[in-house]
């Protein structure tokens, strides 16, 4: 039997409806999917449930308000929300704004490239599988590192995760953007 053609994930479809059509139903779907995961993720690093829900609320409102910055040619929704959640957690814990790189916006006049979006999702899926295949102690190290529980001295430059292909794919996504950096290289 032939494999069904790969599809863009529901999360990405919802996120694009939020971004392009301000679709509240799609936003509610994103909430249903991500809020319990975010709460679990935030509580793992020791944040009490009540404060974790406040952070979930801030993160989901940022997803709605900053949706224009979501670029499916560079990130899956989970990666984009991860970064928002970590920023918010740090701001709350340290009571200072975390330094963030300059924002790069997708040029709305460039047509989306479905095969590129799909490739990003496939790379993301492969990363998930690679993590799932790790031995439990290795997986725990990865989780700790990305939960912010390891210092830069403790993070080995060899995580054992194959990041090369997703890096190149994201780089292609960055090259789609029109910005002054491109002229510098």
């Amino acid at each position, binding site marked *: 039997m032939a494999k069904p053609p790969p599809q863009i994930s529901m999360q990405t479809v919802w996120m694009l409806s939020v971004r392009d059509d301000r679709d*509240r139903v799609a*936003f*509610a779907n994103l909430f*249903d999917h*991500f*809020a*319990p*995961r975010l*709460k*679990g*993720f935030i509580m*793992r690093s020791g944040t009490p449930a009540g404060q974790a*829900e406040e952070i*979930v*609320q801030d993160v*989901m*409102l940022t997803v*709605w*308000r900053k949706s224009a910055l979501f670029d499916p040619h560079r*990130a*899956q929704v*989970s*990666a*984009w*929300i*991860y*970064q928002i959640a*970590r920023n918010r957690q*740090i701001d709350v814990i340290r009571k*200072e*704004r*975390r*330094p*963030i*790189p*300059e924002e790069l916006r997708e040029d709305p006049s460039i047509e989306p490239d479905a095969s590129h979006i799909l490739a990003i999702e496939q790379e*993301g899926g492969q*990363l998930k599988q690679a*993590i799932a295949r790790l031995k439990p102690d290795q997986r725990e190290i*990865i989780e700790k*590192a*990305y939960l*912010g529980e*390891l*210092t*830069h001295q403790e*993070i080995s*430059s060899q*995580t054992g*995760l194959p990041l090369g292909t*997703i*890096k190149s794919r*994201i*780089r292609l996504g*960055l*090259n789609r953007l029109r910005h002054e*950096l*491109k002229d*510098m*290289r």
Partner: protein
Amino acid sequence: MTAITHHTPDNLLAAYAAGNLPHPYAVVVASHISLCLKCRAALEAHQAVGGAVLEAACQQSVSENLKSSILAQLDAPVTPEPTFQRSGIYPGPVVEALKGKSPRWASLGTGVRQSILSAGREGSVRLLYIPPGQAVPDHSHNGLELTLVLQGSFSDETGRFGVGDLEVADQTLEHTPIADLGAPCICLAATDAPLRFTSLIPRLLQPLFRI
């Protein structure tokens, strides 16, 4: 403009993605990423791993009214947070650290100047201005030192660093960066400890200048 050849090491990118890099280093790494598409792609790859960890997180049910409360706030007017874009040679994160103002330079002698952006328990981050041909006072340091070139270039025992290049030095490296001829060299430098000078006079001045 020549291509960036000295990049942010992967463990710093992972720690930055996870939000666990001390503030002074985070300013430098965010500035380097603002200038370097290669490291931005690498950062976003680390965020993809973070996303995978988030997807796999143990789910905790949320309060019944959380969703309705959030949905009710979607239309609430909000003051957008300020975003900081590049201004001249200064990348957005530096502009933010400068609070949108120009650097306030203080002389360190021999034409070298500094402008401290922040100094605290986690270390310090500053701008350094080094006239062509001048050396940054001979120094070693207790911990990690990150130096990002914003204008001109410098060379030391390990190589040449131009605009956008990031030098990563640890306590084992005793180096003497010298600004190359041409435009004055302006760098963004972060340390987690006060710099230790190897010659006597700057060492005496150190408490005064906080370098």
